[in-house]
């Protein structure tokens, strides 16, 4: 080993460190440590002059090891590694002592803080002596991208990447892309027709030469790492040959069997062979085995008889497709909250209590009532109550605010006023109209004769106390602005239900090795500064799977995710950490303990040599195998036993 010549640099960080730790004392202490050639202090070591001080010393004093005592390595290790590298030293010949986050900020006693800082500096100095130069490896990035979820987020991201000239696989579990947005009637605050703004995007995604649409498909397995993922997708059997079908729709016309339409939330019907809605992309139907009488009783085949193209294939099987992609965007959206458990609101007990999504279908010109806002008996409501925060901002269900309900509630008021003569009551807790043009929309609605009642609704009941209430649904609660108990008799109640994580969010999180927050939504890498990346490199999130959000925010996040993917594609390579495990094949006894323990399946057994070997591209450098190896045959680069022991010795000075 060359003679270590160590430079130690202690940062004041303004008064963040120097206000508690006696920096001068730490520098004097460092000067006396073994192999330390120079020790200096500076106001802000991460600034240009601070970094230049280190670079100059490396050149002039021929330093071959550097220690910086400042903030957390999680913050500035890359900064200083870069500085050291610029001065011609291998970046791994550097070590950081965390005397801010883990010392000056947590210790009250100045003297004790100074002692702790000395111990941390001593540990870094002892450790850095053992550091070895390490080389990082570049691996190429596969330019293809997988996008999971074909709602507005997935479509937007797919189009951005495909337009830039790169291959996209867009996987959607339903028979058509479009997501929740295509179920909506109008969009707030502009009152654009949802389908009018979304269907062109759906069509583009469906016909784009760079987008391979995989509808009625689900991701089953994901392996690999950033730049090089392998994905297994199950294409569920449609029983319709996608190559032959021209979407003429005769099969659906002739099919004699009906089932409740999922797309219309059971308010309308569809056939047993169906597309969810007429503008479906792709316009290829699927046969629902649960309701097709041929699958149930072995007779019928009407669709087959009438299909001129011979596209019906009752023998079709699920198909497994293997994909190779460099990056993955998850845009799996949300589930609407089922308000049945909130018994007091009467959903599923009183027929004229609707959820918001049901109302969207009711209001939609292409919906089951042709856009007429009517009660179950077909008559027009004379009064409608819209109850906010159903399942949101409620500690029994979801504590969070679902962010879109206030605005769609206002939108409903407008649509009801436009289409009927009904009185509209908004039963709200707080009006949250925070987006661009939202407050203005609220003001506009305030002038349209909508009645706003502030207070959480206690109950929806049909028990009438007066003649006027007979045959009505009575919304009971408190008007907190007037301080009185109220009873509002209405014909129709709309529940503004929460947006909640998908019921299979946990499985999706495990599949893609990403994390969920306490609320169940996927967690971004940083809540402010990195809202689209996840803790797994190469996997990004967009839309409501990350948290409730409206369409503009979803589109913005999807574009951001696409941009992140594009920048990785254009860079063309990713750098792999050098701090991986290596197995000394001379020492390896072939016991395979490490094979089983490795959480990343990075260790394989070489049968003919009877030894284990680490795949550096898969190894995340956790060191679990190192600790477990009974033969001490595995070295954890940059976290060798020697290095850690030297550090222990240092902290215990």
């Amino acid at each position: 080993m060359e003679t270590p010549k160590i430079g130690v640099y202690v940062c004041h960080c303004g008064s963040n460190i120097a206000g508690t730790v006696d920096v001068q004392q730490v520098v004097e202490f460092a000067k006396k440590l073994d192999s330390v050639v120079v020790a200096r202090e500076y106001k802000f070591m991460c600034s240009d002059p601070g970094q230049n001080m280190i670079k100059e010393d490396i050149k002039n004093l021929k330093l071959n090891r550097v220690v910086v005592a400042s903030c957390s390595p999680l913050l500035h290790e890359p900064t200083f590694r870069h500085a050291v590298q610029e001065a011609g030293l291998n970046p791994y010949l550097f070590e950081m002592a965390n005397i801010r986050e883990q010392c000056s900020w947590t210790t009250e006693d100045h003297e004790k803080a100074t002692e702790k800082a000395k111990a941390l500096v001593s540990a870094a100095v002892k450790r850095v002596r053992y550091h070895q130069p390490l080389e990082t490896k570049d691996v190429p990035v596969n330019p293809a991208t997988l996008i999971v979820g074909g709602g507005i987020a997935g479509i937007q991201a797919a189009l951005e990447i495909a337009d830039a000239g790169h291959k996209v696989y867009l996987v959607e579990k339903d028979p058509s892309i479009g997501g929740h947005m295509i179920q909506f009637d109008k969009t707030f605050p502009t009152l654009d027709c949802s389908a009018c703004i979304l269907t062109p995007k759906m069509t583009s995604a469906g016909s784009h030469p760079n987008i391979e649409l995989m509808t009625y498909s689900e991701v089953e397995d994901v392996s690999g790492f950033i730049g090089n993922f392998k994905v297994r997708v199950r294409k569920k059997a449609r029983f319709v040959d996608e190559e032959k079908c021209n979407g003429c729709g005769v099969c659906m016309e002739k099919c004699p069997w009906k089932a409740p339409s999922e797309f219309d939330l059971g308010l309308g019907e569809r056939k047993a062979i169906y597309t969810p809605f007429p503008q479906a992309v792709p316009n290829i139907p699927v046969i629902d085995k649960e309701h097709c009488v041929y699958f149930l009783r072995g007779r019928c085949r009407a669709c087959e008889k009438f299909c001129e193209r011979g596209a019906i294939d009752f023998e079709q099987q699920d198909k497994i497709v293997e994909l190779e992609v460099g990056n993955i965007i998850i845009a799996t959206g949300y589930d609407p909250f089922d308000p049945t458990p909130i018994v007091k609101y009467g959903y599923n007990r009183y027929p004229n209590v609707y959820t918001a999504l049901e109302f969207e279908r009711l209001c939609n010109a292409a919906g089951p009532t042709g856009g007429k806002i009517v009660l179950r008996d077909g008559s027009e409501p004379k009064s409608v109550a819209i109850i906010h925060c159903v399942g949101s901002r409620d500690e029994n269900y979801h504590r969070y605010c679902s962010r879109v309900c206030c605005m769609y509630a206002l939108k409903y008021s407008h649509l009801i006023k436009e289409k009927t003569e009904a009185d509209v009551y908004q039963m709200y807790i707080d009006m949250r109209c925070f987006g661009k043009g939202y407050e203005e929309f609220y003001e506009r609605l305030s002038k349209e004769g909508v009645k706003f009642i502030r207070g959480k609704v206690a109950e929806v009941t049909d028990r009438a106390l007066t003649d006027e209430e007979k045959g009505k649904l009575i919304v009971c609660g408190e008007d907190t602005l007037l301080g009185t108990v109220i009873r509002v008799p209405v014909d129709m109640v709309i529940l503004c239900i929460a947006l909640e994580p998908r019921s299979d969010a946990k499985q999706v999180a495990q599949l893609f090795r990403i994390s969920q927050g306490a609320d169940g939504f996927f967690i971004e890498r940083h809540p402010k500064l990195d809202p689209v990346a996840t803790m797994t490199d190469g996997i990004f999130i967009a839309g409501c799977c990350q948290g409730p959000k409206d369409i503009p925010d979803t589109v913005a996040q999807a574009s951001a995710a696409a941009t992140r993917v594009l920048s990785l594609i254009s860079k063309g390579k990713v750098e792999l950490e050098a701090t991986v495990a290596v197995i000394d094949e001379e020492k390896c006894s072939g016991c395979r303990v490490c094979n089983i323990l490795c959480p990343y399946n990075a260790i394989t057994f070489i049968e003919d040599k009877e030894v284990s070997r680490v795949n550096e591209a898969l190894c995340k450098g956790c060191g679990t195998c190192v600790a477990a190896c009974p033969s001490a045959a595995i070295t954890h680069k940059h976290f060798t036993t020697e290095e850690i022991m030297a550090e222990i010795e240092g902290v215990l000075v």
Partner: protein
Amino acid sequence: MSFEPRIVGFMCNWCAYAAADLAGTARKKYPPNVRIVRVMCSGRVEPALILKAFELGADGVLVCG
């Protein structure tokens, strides 16, 4: 003088070490007796490291991950 234990804390880079940083960012105060050694996973902490800490005079060892 009262007894001041010397504690070595092995902390996982991704969770406990980051949490210790967060404690600092939130200016939470705790006794300076614990000295943190960063590892990339608590799975890296083999018995020999813990014994080494005791051998060198630690009064306690924390493994957090």
